[in-house]
């Protein structure tokens, strides 16, 4: 790694700082969206005045907004994401306890999306407007439009209830019982992967079509290179950057879409946690989950950015 690349990594890291800060402002600002007196809303209809005052003090709502933010941020930086208003448990512990379940199906879905989407994209791009291409693009359009939780329900009906190949609901720890964890994660990951498969197929197809119809590929043809060699050595190398960008996008979406999937498969992950806490107006938990997920996405985007600059020398020169 040369000095220029180190400088580049440094500047990318610095660029992340304002994004993280603005994200914390947005997360903190969620509470400001609550209409009326947040403490009264959180306490519920039948709360006593003392309970409302308690909540107001606990959330620091009796202080000016900017002071609330600074205090909240100060705690958050030290890993203190406050405590649940309902269970009283530290938010971070609860989020970290559930995170592995969510990450397992999300990462598995991403792997499936790449393993299925990339070949489909190549297949379609090398057979443009032929029947194979038509079929693949139709499947991809369906994949974008199908509600993933509905697909999850159908998968449960067919593979879990019907054939009994997979457990219907629940999750298991990957470290304690990897096989059981994977069999639990298989169907949810597959349901979650459909949108990603479709997205990767579509993007890869159009990127590859563009590359394969470019001037230099025509030159390669003129030089007498075989189609396969052009595809593997030149085409895919050039679309790998597109793929990297799409993978980041797909991961972000899957991390969100897992919410409904977790409900279908009764997986105790961060998605089901955010739904339950939003329903119960347990805002510290909502904020905590969103904060952790946003940090994960920002971290991944940073990694993709860095990979990008390592893979593509043109990015460095700029």
């Amino acid at each position, binding site marked *: 790694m040369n000095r220029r690349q180190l400088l580049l990594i440094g500047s990318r890291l610095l660029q992340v700082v*304002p*994004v*993280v800060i*603005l*994200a914390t402002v*947005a*997360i903190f600002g*969620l*509470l400001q*969206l*609550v*209409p009326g007196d947040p403490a009264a*809303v959180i306490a519920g209809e039948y709360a006593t005045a003392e309970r409302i005052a308690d909540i107001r003090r606990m959330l620091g709502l009796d202080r000016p907004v900017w002071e609330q933010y600074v205090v909240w941020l100060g705690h958050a930086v030290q890993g203190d994401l406050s405590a649940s208003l309902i269970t009283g448990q530290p938010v971070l512990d609860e989020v970290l306890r559930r995170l592995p379940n969510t990450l397992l199906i999300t990462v598995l879905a991403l792997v499936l999306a790449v393993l299925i989407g990339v070949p489909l994209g190549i297949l379609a791009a090398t057979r443009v407007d032929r029947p194979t291409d038509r079929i693949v693009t139709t499947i991809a*359009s*369906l994949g*974008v*439009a*199908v*509600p993933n*939780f*509905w697909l999850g*329900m*159908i998968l*449960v*009906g067919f593979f879990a*209830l019907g054939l009994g190949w997979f457990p219907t609901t629940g999750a298991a720890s990957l470290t304690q019982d990897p096989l059981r964890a994977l069999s639990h994660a298989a169907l949810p990951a597959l349901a979650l992967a459909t949108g990603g498969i479709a997205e990767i197929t*579509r*993007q890869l197809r*159009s*990127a590859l079509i*563009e590359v394969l119809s470019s001037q230099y590929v025509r030159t390669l043809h003129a030089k007498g290179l075989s189609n396969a060699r052009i595809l593997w050595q030149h085409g895919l190398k050039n679309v790998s950057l597109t793929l990297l960008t799409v993978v980041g996008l797909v991961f*972000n*979406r899957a*991390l*969100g*879409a897992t*919410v*409904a999937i977790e*409900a*279908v498969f009764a997986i105790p992950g961060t*998605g089901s946690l*955010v*739904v339950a*806490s*939003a*329903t119960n*107006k347990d*805002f510290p938990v*909502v*904020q905590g*989950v*969103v904060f952790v*997920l*946003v940090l994960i*996405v*920002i971290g991944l*985007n940073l990694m993709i950015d860095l990979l990008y600059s390592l893979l593509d020398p043109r990015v460095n020169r700029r």
Partner: protein
Amino acid sequence: MSAALQPVRAVRRPSASRRFLSWLRSDLRAAVSLAYLLVLFSLSVFADVLAPHSPIAQSMDMLAPPDAAHWLGTDDLGRDVFSRLIHGAPMTLYASFLAVGVGTLIGLPVGIMAGYLGGWVDGLTGRIIDALLSFPSIVLAIAVTGALGIGLTNSMIAVGIVFSPGLARLIRVQTIVVKNDLYVDAARTFGMSPLRIVWRHILPNAIQPFIVQVTLLLATALLAEASLSFLGLGVQPPQPSWGQMLARSYGYMEISPEQMYAPGLAILFTALAFNALGESLRAVLDPTRRRSD
């Protein structure tokens, strides 16, 4: 010589309706999608007249299989599934257009302002957009819904808020492209006010990719509504919605599995129609950009 000279017939742009018809003729998929959406819209408007039963009337005839009286059977409370499906249509359309409307109302002015003004306004807006785009969208929508209060309108306002940074970014780029065009410079030299320049010159020339994106987002909004109603954060019972019907049918899937197909297919077809319309509009309005982003 002079006999060969014919008067030049003025080349006129075909009328809007003519262009619209030729677009539909050239793209069967878009025509079918538009027809489907029109049917869905009519069903929504005349749901009370067209639905054979009340969507919320319960009966002792629970989980009945499809027959002549109940075309799609009845649910666990003895309500007619077909009628609930029809009454779910207006909810769906309302939700999709509300979310996209809110997204446009926030994203469009912010994006144009950032792109047109440039400088620190643009820098700051860009950073805020970057930050907001790092939120997993459904999770952010759920968090905002929790803050605003559970219900269809609030959850769709939340989805709209989630849409706005992406839309702002799109129109910002277009604005930057357009604002350096010669006619904008000309308008500026004539002393046209910035607001008028934006309204008369920038908006009409920058809006086309935005229209495409908004059409595609209708499908995303529809799927978000289905997810949120499925999770109990959107449409509240006893009002019917397709997502919520799926959640109910999942509860008794082992008794009558066929009930989870109709609402799911309704969601799928409607999302497909919005997407097909968006893709077709992209081909018509935006020939330079084929890749979606």
